[in-house]
C-alpha cells in the first residue's frame, strides 16, 4: 500500500510539472488557437537564466530563498521579453497566413533557441543549486520532500490565479473577448494586439516559473531539457482540452499519474510481457481513447469557455 501511495505522490509531482508547462500552452491556444511549439524551449531558457543568476548570487551571502526569488524575477523578465519577441517576429506577421505557417516558424524558433542556448551555456549538463528546502517527510510509509510539495502548491496556485485573472479582471474580459472575436473586441475598445502580446508574456513568465520548478526538483539543467518536457506538457494540455485552464491542470495531473502507475504496474499486470518501457505507449493510448470519445479533450468545449 505504501508503494501505491508513493506512486500516487510520484505521479502528482510529475503531473504538476506537466501542468505548469501545459498552462502556458493553453493560455496562448485559448486566445489565438495557435500551438506555441516553442514554449518548451522558453521553459528551458527560463531555467538557464535562473541558473546563471543564482550561480552569480549564491556566493553573496543572500538567503537562498531570496536568491531564488531574484532568479525567478530575472528569468521571468527575460522570458517575457523573449515571449513578446517570438510573438512579434514569428507569429504576428503570419496571422492571416495558412494555419501551418506559424507551426513551421515555431519549429524554427525552437531550433534557434536550442542552439543559442547551446552556444551561450555550453553543451554540458549543469547542476542547479539547491535553493529550496529539500528535507523529506514520511507520509503513511511514502516519502515526499518539500520541493515536491512546493511544486504541487505552485502549480495549483498558478492555475487558480490564472482562472481569477481570466474570469474576474478587466484584462481577463478583454482576453476572452479577443478569443471570441478580435474585430468585435477591437470595436469595443480592446486592443487585440496588446492583449495578445500580454498573453504571450504571461505564458512566458509561466514558463520561467515552470523552468525553475523543474530544475529545483531534478537539480540538473541542460539546453535540451525543453523539447521533451514541452512535448509531454502539450500532450497533457490536449488530454485535458487545450484552451481550458482547468483542463491543463487536469490533463497534467492525469498524465503524471498514468505515467507513474503505468511504469509501476504495467509489468506486473501483464506478467512481464510489457514493462516500464511501454510507459509512453500507455500514455498515448489513453490519450487516443479519450479523444475518440471526447474529440476536444476531457474539459474542452469547441468554442465557448476558452481561456
Amino acid at each position, binding site marked *: 500500500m505504501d508503494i501505491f501511495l508513493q506512486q500516487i505522490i510520484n505521479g502528482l509531482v510529475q503531473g504538476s510539472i506537466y501542468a505548469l508547462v501545459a498552462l502556458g500552452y493553453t493560455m496562448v491556444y485559448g486566445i489565438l488557437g495557435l500551438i506555441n511549439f516553442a514554449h518548451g524551449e522558453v521553459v528551458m531558457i527560463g531555467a538557464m537564466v535562473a541558473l546563471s543568476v543564482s550561480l552569480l548570487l549564491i556566493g553573496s551571502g543572500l538567503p537562498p530563498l531570496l536568491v531564488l526569488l531574484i532568479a525567478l524575477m530575472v528569468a521571468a523578465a527575460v522570458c517575457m521579453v523573449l515571449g513578446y519577441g517570438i510573438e512579434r517576429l*514569428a507569429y504576428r506577421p503570419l496571422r492571416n497566413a495558412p*494555419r501551418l505557417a506559424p507551426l513551421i516558424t515555431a519549429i524554427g524558433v525552437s531550433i534557434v533557441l536550442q*542552439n543559442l542556448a547551446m552556444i551561450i551555456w555550453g553543451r554540458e549538463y549543469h547542476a542547479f543549486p539547491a535553493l529550496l528546502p529539500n528535507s523529506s517527510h514520511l507520509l503513511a510509509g511514502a516519502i515526499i520532500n518539500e520541493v515536491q510539495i512546493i511544486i504541487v502548491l505552485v502549480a495549483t496556485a498558478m492555475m487558480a490565479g490564472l482562472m481569477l485573472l481570466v474570469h474576474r479582471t478587466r484584462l481577463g474580459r478583454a482576453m476572452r473577448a479577443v478569443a471570441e472575436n478580435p474585430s468585435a473586441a477591437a470595436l469595443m475598445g480592446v486592443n487585440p494586439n496588446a492583449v*495578445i502580446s500580454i498573453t504571450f508574456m504571461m505564458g512566458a513568465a509561466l514558463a520561467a516559473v515552470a523552468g525553475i520548478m523543474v530544475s529545483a526538483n531534478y537539480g540538473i539543467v541542460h539546453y535540451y531539457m525543453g523539447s521533451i518536457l514541452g512535448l509531454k506538457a502539450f500532450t497533457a494540455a490536449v488530454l485535458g482540452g487545450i484552451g481550458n485552464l482547468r483542463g491543463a491542470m487536469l490533463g497534467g495531473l492525469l498524465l503524471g499519474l498514468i505515467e507513474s502507475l503505468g511504469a509501476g504496474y504495467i509489468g506486473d499486470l501483464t506478467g512481464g510481457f510489457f514493462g516500464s518501457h511501454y510507459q509512453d505507449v500507455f500514455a498515448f493510448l489513453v490519450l487516443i481513447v479519450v479523444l475518440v470519445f471526447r474529440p476536444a479533450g476531457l474539459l474542452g468545449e469547441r468554442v465557448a469557455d476558452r481561456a
Partner: protein
Amino acid sequence: MNMLAQMSRKHRAWLAFAALAMLLLSLPFITDALLGRGWVRILDFALLYIVLALGLNIVVGYAGLLDLGYIAFFAVGAYCYALLGSPQFGLHLPFWIVLPAGALLAGFFGVLLGAPTLKLRGDYLAIVTLGFGEIIRIFLNNLNAPLNITNGPQGISMIDPIRIGEFSLASTHELFGLTFPSVHLHYYLFLCITLLVIFVSLRLEDSRIGRAWMAIREDEVAAAAMGINTRNIKLLAFAMGATFGGAAGGLFAGFQGFVSPESFGLTESIMVLCMVVLGGMGNIGGVVFGGVLLVLLPEALRHGAGPVQQALFGKMFIDPESLRMLLFGLALIAVMLWRPAGLWPSRQRRRELSADDDAAQRGTVYDAAK
C-alpha cells in the same frame, strides 16, 4: 504562321523536357566531379525525402489532415525490408517482393491510424498522429524481448543490398563504358521511384479522389453534403500517403544496410512536414523543391558556416557546427515570413490567400479553417 508558333512552342517544351532529362541523368556524374561523392549520397537522400514529402503531401496538402507521426510509415517500410532481407530471420527475399510488401504493410498501418482519428480535426489530430508515431517507434525499440523480432535498440545490420536480378546496387558496375559506383546506381533507382510517385501524385490531383480530398480539406461538412464518403476518402488519403512512406522506408533500409529505431524519431516527422509546408503545400513542384532544399541546406551550411565566418570576421567566433543548426532554424523562420504559403504554393492556394487579404481580420485571429 499560327501553326508555326504552336509548333515551336511544342518544340520548345520538348527541348526543355529533353534538357531536364539530360540534367537529371547526368547529375550524379556532374556532382561527383564538382563536389565529390558525398554529395551524390546527399542527392540520394534528397530523392528519398522527396518521396516521403510527396506521401505526406497527400495527407496534409490534399486532404488537409495534419499528421505529425508520418515517419512511422517510413519505419514500417524500412523494418519490413530489414526483417525479410537480412540475417535477422535468415530470410533473403528478393527486392521486388520486399519493397511492395513494406509499402502495403505501411498502407495497412495508415488505415489503422486513420480509423480511430476520423472524428478529430486540426491540432487534436496532430497530437494523436504524433502519439501513433511514437508508439510505433517504441515498439520497434522494445520488441527484442521476450521474443526477439526487431533486435531492439541494437537495430538490424547486414541488410541485403537492393538487387535486381543478379544486378546488385551495392557494388560498382561498368556499363556503356562508364563506371557506376553504388551511390550513382541508387540515384537512378530512387529517381525512377520519385518520378513514378510524382506521376501518381499528378494523376491523383486531378482525379475524382483528388478533388474529393480537396473538398474535405476546404469544408468537410459541405463535402459530405455533396455525397462524398468522407470516411473512406480520408482513410484512402492515410493509406496512400503511408504507402509512399513505406516504399521510401524499404529503399532506405536497402541503401543504408542498417536500420535502428533512432532513425525514426519525432524530429524526422517534423522535418518531412517542414518540407511539405515550406515548399508549398498541395503543389507537387513546391513539395519537391522543399524536399531538396531541406536536405541540401544543412549540408551546405556544414561547409558554409565556418568559411563564411572566417571570411567575414577574419576568425571563428562560434563553432561552425553550433552555428549550422542555428542558421537552419533562422532560415525556416525567414522563409515562412517571406512566403507564408510556401516557396512555391499551388495556384489555388495563392488565389485563396489574396482573397483573404480583402477580408482580413475576420473570424478568429488565426483562422483555423484555412
